[in-house]
């Protein structure tokens, strides 16, 4: 009897420490952040002192004031996600089906750039694309870009940096789902007189959808909240929501606005992600 009882309890005992930890340091902070988001400054207090007044208009103010950065965050994140998908899909396809005995080595090479600090790599892009790098001078000589055009401090550089940084997050799930496809399904499609393009469109792509969904989510979510690429590769006019939240926190000590923006960002991401998963029709993510 006691053994049956302990068997029933065992999973809960295993979960307990981890979930207690996540409750204290993940759920509680989010609840606390929600509380902060409706506070207002104390009438004659110091900077950074706030009281709870349930002012939900904080959200509207924060959104209206920063709607440009908000829109930019999502546009940049969507561009970076689509670009990463366009680069990663053939890459994952080549590793899964065309690499032969080099498969494992190539997989390691996909993760390898991760091991050099991502900040170092982002700064490296800044210098590569900079005036003294090896990209701009030849392009100038060839007349592809004008004398006054720069590549750094542009939205282009920010999107390029984000695409770069999140590329492995896109490639690995794509590879995982492509690798699971039985090559005989593709052969069968060929036997039934489908050409290469039709086989890809009707067989390979649908079977790899779980990877596409997982990869785009793993790229889009961190990209939408990113501020490092915009800070290093961008200019004041390419600031994203992350930059605003960061400066509200550290430079202006405006906690309620930062909290309200954080929540709006999270809610927008969750809504988009839910719609996307519904539409793409996979529930196997978790």
């Amino acid at each position, binding site marked *: 009897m006691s053994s049956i009882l302990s068997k029933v309890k065992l*999973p*809960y005992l*295993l*979960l307990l420490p*981890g*979930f207690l*930890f*996540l409750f204290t*340091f*993940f759920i509680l*902070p989010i609840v*606390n*952040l929600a509380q*902060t988001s409706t506070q207002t400054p104390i009438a004659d207090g110091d900077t950074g002192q706030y009281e709870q007044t349930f002012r939900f208009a904080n959200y509207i103010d924060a959104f209206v004031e920063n709607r440009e950065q908000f829109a930019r965050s999502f546009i940049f994140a969507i561009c970076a996600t689509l670009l990463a998908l366009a*680069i*990663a899909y*053939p*890459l994952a*396809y*080549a590793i899964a089906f065309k690499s032969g005995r080099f498969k*494992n080595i190539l997989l*390691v*090479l*996909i993760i*390898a*750039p*991760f*091991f*050099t*600090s*991502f*900040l*170092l*790599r*982002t700064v*490296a892009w800044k*210098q*590569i694309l*900079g005036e*003294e790098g090896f990209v701009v001078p030849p392009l100038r000589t060839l007349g592809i870009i004008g004398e006054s055009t720069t590549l750094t401090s542009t939205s282009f550089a920010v999107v390029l940096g984000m695409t*770069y940084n999140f*590329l*492995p997050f896109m490639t690995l799930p794509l590879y995982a789902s492509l690798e699971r496809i039985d090559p005989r399904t593709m052969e069968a499609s060929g036997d039934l007189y489908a050409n290469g393009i039709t086989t890809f469109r009707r067989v390979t792509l649908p079977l790899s959808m779980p990877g596409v969904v997982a990869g785009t*989510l793993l790229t889009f*979510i*961190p990209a*939408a*909240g*990113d501020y490092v690429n915009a800070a290093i590769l961008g200019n004041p006019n390419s600031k994203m929501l*992350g930059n605003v*939240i*960061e400066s509200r*926190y550290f430079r202006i000590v405006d906690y309620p606005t*930062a*909290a309200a923006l954080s*929540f709006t*960002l*999270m809610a927008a991401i*969750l809504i988009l992600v839910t719609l996307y998963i519904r539409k793409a029709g996979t529930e196997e993510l*978790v």
Partner: protein
Amino acid sequence: MTKVKDATIPTIPAQARLSRWFGRNLIRIYAFFGFTYLFIPVAYTFAFSFNDSGKSNLIWKGFTLDNWQNPCGAPEICTALGNSIKIGLLATIFSTILGTMIAFAIGRYAFKGRSTSNLLIFLPMATPEIVLGASLLSLFLVFQINPGFWPTVIAHVVFCISFVVVTVKARIASLDPRLEQAAMDLYANELQTFRRVTLPLVAPGIAAAALLAFSLSFDDFIITNFNSGTLTTFPKFVYVSAARGIPAQANVIGSAMFFLALAIVIAGQLISKKTKINK
């Protein structure tokens, strides 16, 4: 007339052959460019670790080995590196233990609240880092805990746990249940089965999860920036010095980490291949 025809015949297959070669290898060519894109900044970082640059490593000034011989040459850099390693190790230990326990509970047992548990694991991964970092800092401020070393460790454990759970759970799911049944048939009790059969089989998954946790923690900037206060970590060091040019020693450390991690991964693959052959 016929002569002209004859002359054109051999050129057509040559062209066709070339275009067929392109068609067949298009994806490989594309993949080659993909990998080039991935490795340009890595190669750049490595090359500039040999730059005789003085304080700011912006322009190539000449080859030197000094930076590699004296990686701690730049002020603060090794303190920052040390902090990153300490935080990374602690965060890895805690998140691997907690995450593996959760993975066994979710991967092995059907219990009430299992799907809720899955959701709770998924949520930190779906939360943007900046929100995680900002919310934790708010909590620490409410309890008047100063940001610093331990708050950073806690913050890292929060986002590492989910990745550990997902990695270990995948390994548990791929286990053949017959192996455990066989152990039980041979009169091993549950604890013995777990210790002698299940755990060794799951171990590679746990090792991979620990490696992942360490690299996530070591490389993290956003959450660290919120919760570390005045403590410097390696990514923070790079970010702060980015404005006035990063010392070449940072490139040395970044490149060294790259080769070290690559060596660990390749060694791991060789070991697993060897054990497979021995079996």
